[in-house]
């Protein structure tokens, strides 16, 4: 039994609407979990709540990350502890340089770990290496955060940032949506290279497609705020074949 990520009976509501209705999830080091489900089932809400968005009223029996109470931490503390969210809709931040902000982010994390600032040289070496990993053009890395990026470029920039920050747990919220097959392969390849026995990923996706390239250890189906079915990678294939209606019918029949 590890203390990596443990979620028990997680509930979240906004403006009186309960969106997450009791999620249980356990992730161990080195695992890849896929969370699938139709639109509106609460996937982004789950990732937002784990990353620390404040808009929700959140309750749970337990949410711990690396043995610490996740819900008591500010978003930046979660990040410094090694949690990373690749956003479904990354924001554009005009006037804030991608590179400068990443340097500040890396240093914030290093300070948290009791380390000194990264040297300019090490930082540049790292930028080069990680840019190559996701085939992000240098001109994009140097621009304002996501400003004027295409949809695919934004997603690649998320993976670039993830690669730079080297999280223990990466949550990818529909990073595959809207990507053409080449971009999808680049993103998947990036994730595969970052995978190790120590860090884990939660891949939130609507389609099975991504899972051809990143093979999950577990697949969960989220529907109406609950995980209604879990299985191995074959569950994703089954969903692909039969569609979500099959599961929805099964759930509602109970």
């Amino acid at each position, binding site marked *: 039994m590890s203390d990596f990520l443990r979620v028990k009976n997680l509930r979240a509501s906004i403006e009186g609407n309960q969106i997450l209705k009791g999620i249980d999830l356990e992730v161990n080091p080195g695992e890849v979990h896929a969370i699938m489900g139709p639109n509106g089932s609460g996937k982004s809400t789950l990732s937002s709540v784990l990353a620390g968005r404040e808009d929700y009223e959140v309750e749970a029996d337990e949410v711990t990350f690396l043995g610490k109470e996740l819900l008591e931490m500010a978003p*930046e503390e979660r990040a410094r502890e090694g949690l990373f969210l690749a956003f479904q809709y990354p924001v554009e*931040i*005009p006037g*804030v340089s991608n590179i400068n902000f990443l340097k500040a*982010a890396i240093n914030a994390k290093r300070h948290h770990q009791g380390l000194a600032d990264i040297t300019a040289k090490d930082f540049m070496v790292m930028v080069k290496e990680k840019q190559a990993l996701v085939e992000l053009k240098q001109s994009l890395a140097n621009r304002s955060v996501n400003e004027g990026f295409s949809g695919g470029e934004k997603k690649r920039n998320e993976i670039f940032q993830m690669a730079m920050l080297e999280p223990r747990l990466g949550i990818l919220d529909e990073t595959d949506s809207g990507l053409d097959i080449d971009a999808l392969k680049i993103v998947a390849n990036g994730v595969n290279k970052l995978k190790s026995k120590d860090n884990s990923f939660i891949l939130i996706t609507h389609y099975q497609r991504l899972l051809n390239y990143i093979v999950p250890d577990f697949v969960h189906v989220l529907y109406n705020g609950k995980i209604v079915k879990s299985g191995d990678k074959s569950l994703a294939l089954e969903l692909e074949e039969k569609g979500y209606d099959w599961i929805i019918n099964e759930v509602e029949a109970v």
Partner: protein
Amino acid sequence: MANKLDFLKQFDQLTALFPVQGNARAVIHNGLDFPTTRDEYWKYTRVTSLVESEYVRNVPNIDSIDAFRVPGLDAQYLVFVNGEYSKKFSDTEHIEGVEVTSMRLAEGERKQQMLQHLDQYIDSETQAFHALNTSYFLDGSFITVEKNTSLSKPICILNICAGKRQANNIRNLIVVGEMAKAEFISLHEGHENEGSFTNAVTELKVEQGGDASLYLIQNDGPESAHINAIQVVQEKDSQSKVVTITRTGKLVRNNLNFTVAGQGCESNMYGVYFTSDKQHVDNHTYVDHLVPNCNSNELYKGVMSDRSTGVFNGKIMVHRDAQQTNAFQSNQNILLSERATINTKPELEIYADDVKCSHGCTIGQLDEEAMFYLQTRGLGKAAAAKLLVQAFSGDVTAQITNDALRDMVEGFLHQKFEDQDA
């Protein structure tokens, strides 16, 4: 002290150096009164306490001005302490094509030259604070840049307001000659000056084809007041840029006026105010387009915290003859606290029919989505806010072409957010 004459009496023993000072004294002792909140242009800025207070007058000994300099700035410094010229701290090296003179010390031809311009551009007849300044300034800077001269480094007029309850009338007169180009910094710093009051007037004349930049940096200290007036007069084909950076000052009121009297002129005005505590900062600007084919461009940004209050009023007057005027104006504000407030008002009066004018103002908070995004990358709230505010004010600070000065201004921002993150 409820009476204007009682207030003035405390200055009346000061010697009038120039005839215009006598005239102004007559004006202010007679019909001209200080504005109150009943006056439209002073509606949100209460100055009564300033002109009902008793002030003291002394010039404390200052050992060093290093703490007041712009770090790393290569400039010719002209230094005044409580309005009095400090020869000790001023650079007196001679730069070809430029004359920098203390008004009080001007003699002979130089004095005659000064008197041709002094008080010719500012309105000391109807504006009480201008008249107050003209009446009682003790000294001032008189700077002329000769025809065709291009200055390689800026001239920095450093005014230090030192000691409690001082009333300093600061005066600058700058004439940039034909086809000359120069940058000026009017730097206001303070030292233990609770209850002090700076009343500054700058007349800037830009002659035909000239190009002048003036940076006003207001850092007088949190417990002092500053009323500032800048009058720019532009001749044909000239360019001017005034950048106003307001950092400290309990009560700050800026009156920036441009009289564009020749065709082919460009007038730029930029400002940033970073306010906190109970600071009150009021920027009133006025561009008077008298003739055709001129451009004016204005961008002011506010970053306001705590219970600070702000006022922006930008008036653009396009007279009937001023066809083909392009005038743009924008005022944008970020309120970092729910208790900060801003009153912003564009005022366009256009009597010509073939012009392009636009204005806009915005008031908002920091973008929550962007804040969350930056936080999820590990930046603390203050660090994230700092990046966003820097980005917000960046298009104004980018107008400061001098690197050392821009670094200092950006440093004001850093300090504003410093120590807020654990």
